[in-house]
């Protein structure tokens, strides 16, 4: 485990030769890319091209068959998800993975899990000794952080509502808040604007930019909404059938013949 402290330009995240198959299906084929600190990288591509699979490999949910993932200079390829989370990585999910029996506040509060003081096993005892105001400080400090992010993302009106009854757009925001309150260095967003109206999407873009501006966090984004992607990204990679077929700034990617072929069919490689 080496840490590279020398260059400022060391990528926060670097993926090399990532490959994984499910049954007979090759979901990722030799995928390589890196993300610089503070950058927003978007991954686009047709459905099934492997975008969510890449996120799952980075977050540790899947173990790739081949390749390596390096995060903050350390190799994390086979680490369990909770360890990777503790390094400062958090994420949202394409199909929402909220804690359905909890309120908005409680859901986001779980996001403070790694920041709260704890001792293995002794966590139970710690909870039992915290009946006084002083003893409760560990907990109440987290409450404050949660309310901060709730205010930032405009969720005050649903603070104590069970998330199960919220609108889809609001649920997405709650998941974003939960991931953000962890104060991650790397944030993985899987289709954060899925199911949102255009008004909600603009709001979302502003909030994501705000977060990035304040904390300098790096963001990897999977998206289908092209306008959103072109608007917000510093760099884009395009995937198709588990392979990276293009990489570059939004403008470069827009004109790339392979990208046009993948999305629109036909053959654009000969102009």
């Amino acid at each position: 485990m080496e840490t590279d402290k020398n260059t400022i330009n060391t990528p926060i995240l670097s993926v090399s030769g990532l490959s994984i198959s499910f049954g007979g299906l090759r979901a990722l084929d030799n995928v390589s890319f890196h993300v610089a600190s503070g950058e927003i990288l978007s991954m686009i591509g047709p459905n099934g091209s492997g975008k969510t699979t890449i996120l799952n490999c980075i977050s540790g949910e899947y173990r790739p068959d081949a390749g390596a993932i390096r995060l903050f200079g350390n190799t994390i390829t086979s680490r369990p998800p909770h360890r990777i989370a503790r390094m400062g990585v958090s994420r949202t999910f394409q199909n929402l993975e909220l804690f359905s029996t909890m309120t908005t506040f409680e859901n986001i509060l779980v996001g403070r899990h790694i920041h709260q003081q704890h001792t293995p096993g002794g966590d139970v005892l710690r909870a039992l000794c915290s009946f006084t105001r002083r003893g409760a400080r560990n907990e109440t400090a987290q409450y404050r952080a949660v309310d901060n992010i709730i205010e930032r993302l405009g969720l005050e009106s649903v603070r104590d509502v069970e998330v199960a009854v919220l609108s889809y757009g609001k649920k997405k925001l709650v998941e974003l808040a939960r991931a953000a309150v962890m104060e991650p260095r790397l944030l993985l967003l899987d289709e954060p604007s899925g199911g949102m109206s255009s008004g909600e999407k603009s709001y979302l873009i502003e909030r994501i930019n705000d977060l990035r501006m304040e904390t300098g966090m790096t963001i990897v984004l999977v998206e289908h909404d092209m306008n959103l992607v072109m608007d917000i990204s510093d760099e884009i990679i395009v995937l198709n059938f588990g392979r990276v077929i293009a990489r570059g700034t939004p403008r470069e990617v827009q004109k790339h013949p392979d990208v046009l072929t993948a999305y629109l069919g036909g053959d654009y490689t000969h102009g």
Partner: protein
Amino acid sequence: MNEWTAIDIVIYLFIQGMAIGSLYAMIALGLVLIYRTSDVLNFSHDKMGMIFAFVAYLLMSDHMPKIIAWCREVPILSSLGDGFIAGLALAAVLALTFCFAFFFGVLTEFFFLRRAKNPSHIGYIVITIGLWLAFDGAASWIFGTEYLSMPAPLSDFPVYHLGKVPISQLDLIIFSATSVLIILLYVFFQHTAVGIAMRATFENRTAARLMGIRTRRIFSITWGIGAVLGAMAGILTAARFDLSNTMMFAPFVKSFSAAVLGGLTSIPGAIVGGWIMGIAENFFGWYISMKLKTTFAFLVILAVLLVRPSGLLVRHHQKKV
């Protein structure tokens, strides 16, 4: 048994193991069938089998003599001999029991499982446990708690000999019944419309519905057939171990092992698992400890679940997020 060589003992344990294993296999079959298609682990399967065995007992002791007497009156039948008549009477009793079992299963599914609005895994398990308890109480109340022997012809089985090794006719019956069942089930699932529909419902419930399969009816039929399998297992268990409320409990636990061993969703797995359980248990009991047989079954379950959770005959799929 004193003049037996080591080989004799091994053969004996093996054959006995196959026999008792077939019983476990039959119990496991009903369990696996229901789990496969409706995704419910029927914890009350042993109590249901026990109830059906009692029903068969009552039919046999109270009504079989009447049937036999009636048959003797009819000239066509009496000319075929007493043995034939006894067999016919037994067949009638069994048929009635199986019909009862089938409807019992269907009604259980209809009244208790279908009504539940979207239960979780825990919900289904609690329902079947509740049924276990209710059936247990009802059976104790109605049938009493003594031990009964099954009446003739399900008693006093002759014992054959393979060299020095004794084999009871009952063991042969159990073994052949299970083997016949395998073949019947294979044909059923591969070549009948209902069987194929059941497989489809298991693979993908929504798609099956979209294809026009009445999944509700499939669930009813599944529970009905499962109950009948339970009845068969119950009657054979009663013939072997004597009828009582708790007779099916120990075999039931072992059939769980068998089902898990073979793979909870695999029908041939249930049978293979049953045989392996029976043989392994016999060897364990002889060479290590008789008293710890049920604990042994549990250890088998644990070992299988840790090493190869899907069981021997089922391929393991990685879950996609």
